[in-house]
């Protein structure tokens, strides 16, 4: 039986004005378990807290009920008070007799009666309270960043700068991501490589950062502060620590017909390659799908020319196991496939290209050395049509486009149009748009400059069909403001393809037990207040894996994620909220209902041996809640058919006791 003390607060006249506090204290004195009951003007004041402390000691109280303002206001205060007097803080319950009683009722009789019932419910609950002790877990002071694009790079640099070791896992042979493929950045028109590559070098030189390039995360176990991750380092058949990146092998390799993915297949590379000149790590990689030596055992030319002796045809995939305290997803994006949009003839003409391909065509390191030439015949295009929202804002059918706005297309198209007119003033440039969306610093000014200073023709309307005819592309479109149908003879059509999360994101989210939305973007713990955290503790989000965003936004989110990671790694131990779920193993069926509803992946299953009748034993599957991961929502407690799952601080029996007390 508990020994409960009841403390009724006047809150000046806030409560005492419509509640007879003395009568409440008196009435609650006769409730089961109550051994002491009093009232005071301001319980939250120093003097009020002293009354509680003294009563705890003097009456050997095991539980405390404070009838006062909302627990959202002073629950923490009174718990600290109790703790100071040697009582477990979770033995304190608040009856909210201000916000939910005195402030809404005018009549003393009514207010007093309700306050007594609310107090009674709190007493009934405390009778069933048990001391709770917050769990503590150590923190591994190392972070993992999945994805080595600008988001991953920025996050890793910021974490490393704070003094914590970071590993970047990148599935491609080099870090850099999409930004490395981009020519210039809006709205300042800096060269992307000029601002990105120094950062890539910083990453390479930072002692706190390790890069696992050409690698993939294979398995994630554990929880916040204690993740155990398996990373598969794919065989690149080149010893990373020996290769000097001189590139001689990539010049001598006789297999010249490999589509160059860095240039989106618009030119070819060799079977042994370094994706681009500023690659980090600057190490060659042999493409096993094309290498003659690996396929037939005949050739070996690269090994012969490599003076460093870095080529190793026998290399195998390697599994690295490492512990991390925090994981950042920075898995990035890709343009969608345009197979379902062939009214724009992307599959029918080489001169219909995506915006990312356009970036490569205008990049000095691209397939045309920066000259804007048509992929079909290498001629300079004189009329270029840009089409916006190809697959974005598309809600017609699920397997076609994306319902969301891809956010970046309006601005990069303005950039493309402007740069084209700047470099080739003899070119006519048309942009078909539904809306031009330019929220961002200096963004609208930039777009207006494209129109006003560079003479780009912006037409409100959409392209309906692109018909390749001879070496021309007949573009049929609407001009809604003029109420006309236009027919433009174009040389090049550039499609602003919607962007979507990288395909690897879903499997990574599954490994991390991080949730995703229907579009496969990672969901944040709170869309406004916790935008860089996943609901899964210890997992953070950086860049476009969370939603479409441009470079400045990506970088700021990347730094924000880093700040969160640093905050976590700076702790020696994690103290967790003790109001978490727990399973009674004797009652648990092991049915997985609880794990299925858990938004945090806090529940796992273990096989446990139980004693059965007649001195036999049986192994049963039972649920086990990781208190460091559980956030205490209670979804599992209702999903559990046997009632094995319960929630500390909000036990079923406690809630039923409150119900009974109220209905009495």
């Amino acid at each position: 039986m508990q020994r409960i003390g009841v403390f009724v607060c006047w809150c000046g006249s806030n409560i005492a004005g419509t509640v007879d506090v003395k009568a409440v204290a008196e009435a609650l004195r006769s409730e089961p378990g109550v051994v002491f009951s009093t009232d005071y003007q301001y319980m939250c004041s120093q003097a009020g807290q002293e009354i509680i402390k003294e009563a705890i000691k003097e009456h050997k109280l095991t539980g405390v009920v404070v009838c006062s303002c909302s627990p959202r206001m002073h629950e923490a205060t009174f718990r600290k008070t109790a703790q100071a007097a040697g009582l477990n803080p979770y033995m304190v319950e608040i009856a909210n007799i201000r916000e939910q009683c005195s402030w809404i009722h005018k009549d003393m009789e009514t207010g007093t009666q309700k306050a007594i019932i609310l107090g009674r419910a709190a007493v009934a609950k405390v009778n069933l309270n048990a001391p709770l002790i917050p769990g503590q877990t150590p923190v591994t002071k190392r972070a993992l960043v999945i994805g080595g694009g600008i988001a991953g790079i920025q996050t890793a640099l910021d974490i490393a700068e704070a003094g914590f070791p970071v590993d970047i896992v990148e599935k491609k042979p080099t870090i850099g991501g999409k930004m490395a493929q981009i020519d210039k950045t809006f709205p300042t028109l800096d060269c992307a490589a000029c601002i990105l590559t120094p950062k890539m070098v910083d990453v390479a030189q930072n002692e706190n950062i390790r890069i696992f390039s050409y690698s993939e995360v294979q398995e994630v176990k554990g929880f916040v502060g204690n993740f155990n991750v398996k990373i598969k380092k794919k065989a690149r058949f080149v010893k990373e620590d020996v290769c000097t990146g001189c590139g001689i092998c990539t010049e001598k390799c006789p297999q010249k017909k490999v589509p160059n993915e860095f240039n989106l297949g618009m030119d070819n590379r060799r079977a042994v390659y370094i994706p681009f000149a500023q690659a980090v790590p600057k190490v060659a990689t042999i493409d096993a799908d094309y290498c003659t030596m690996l396929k037939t055992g005949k050739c070996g030319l690269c090994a012969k020319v490599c003076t460093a002796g870095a080529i190793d045809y026998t290399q195998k995939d390697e599994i690295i196991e490492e512990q991390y305290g925090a994981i950042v997803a920075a898995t990035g994006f890709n343009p969608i496939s345009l197979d379902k949009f062939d009214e724009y003839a992307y599959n029918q003409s080489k001169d219909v290209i995506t915006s990312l391909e356009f970036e490569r065509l205008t990049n000095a390191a691209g397939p045309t050395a920066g000259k804007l030439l048509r992929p079909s015949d290498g001629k300079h295009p004189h009329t270029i049509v840009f089409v916006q929202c190809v697959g974005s804002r598309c809600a017609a059918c699920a397997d076609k486009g994306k319902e969301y706005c891809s956010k970046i297309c309006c601005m990069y198209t303005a950039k493309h149009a402007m740069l084209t007119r700047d470099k080739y003033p003899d070119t006519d440039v048309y942009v078909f748009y539904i809306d031009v969306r330019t929220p961002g610093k200096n963004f609208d000014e930039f777009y207006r400059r494209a129109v006003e200073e560079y003479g780009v023709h912006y037409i409100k309307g959409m392209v309906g069909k692109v018909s390749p005819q001879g070496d021309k592309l007949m573009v049929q479109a609407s001009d809604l403001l003029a109420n006309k149908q236009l027919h433009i003879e174009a040389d090049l059509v550039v499609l602003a393809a919607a962007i979507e999360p990288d395909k690897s994101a879903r499997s990574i989210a599954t490994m991390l037990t991080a949730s995703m939305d229907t579009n496969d973007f990672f969901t944040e713990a709170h869309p406004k207040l916790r935008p860089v955290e996943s609901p899964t503790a210890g997992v953070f989000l950086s860049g476009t894996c969370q939603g479409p965003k441009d470079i400045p936004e990506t970088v700021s989110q990347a730094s924000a994620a880093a700040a969160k990671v640093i905050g976590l790694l700076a702790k020696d131990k994690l103290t967790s909220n003790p109001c978490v779920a727990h399973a009674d193993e004797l009652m648990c069926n092991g049915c997985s209902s609880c794990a299925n509803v858990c938004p945090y992946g806090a529940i796992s299953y273990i096989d446990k041996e139980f004693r059965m009748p007649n001195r036999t034993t049986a192994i049963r599957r039972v649920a086990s809640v990781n208190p460091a991961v559980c956030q205490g929502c209670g979804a599992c407690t209702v999903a559990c058919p046997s009632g094995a799952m319960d929630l500390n601080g909000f036990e079923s029996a406690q809630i039923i006791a409150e119900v009974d007390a109220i209905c009495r």
Partner: protein
Amino acid sequence: MHNKNDNVRSEIIRRSGVNPVKCMRCGKCTATCPAFDTMEYHPHQFVYMVESGDIEPLMNSNSLYQCLTCFACVDRCPRGVEPAKLVEAVRLEVIRKQGANHMKPDSIPAMVEEDLPQQAIVSALRKYHK
């Protein structure tokens, strides 16, 4: 303006099964329409004018009989609005009235050529005549 013709409007929406509010006004229907040049009101205008209840002009327009029912606007609309169905629903609103048939059976023989498949006659009659 939005209350005018409210009955006709809701009848057209019900009959066509089209929800014009889904339109984001990109104009792709009009961009893709092969009958653009013969139409006074274009597919996007049909959608917008039905949505805003401005249906009289559509009912009085010859555009109703120029739609080829080729469904290009239906297939290419990014929002699944299906403008062709609206054109049809407005047309029915007109030709279902007594004596309002756009094409009369007795006028057909003059139009028919020797090789014309009867498919064309039946289709036209279905479209223009009730």
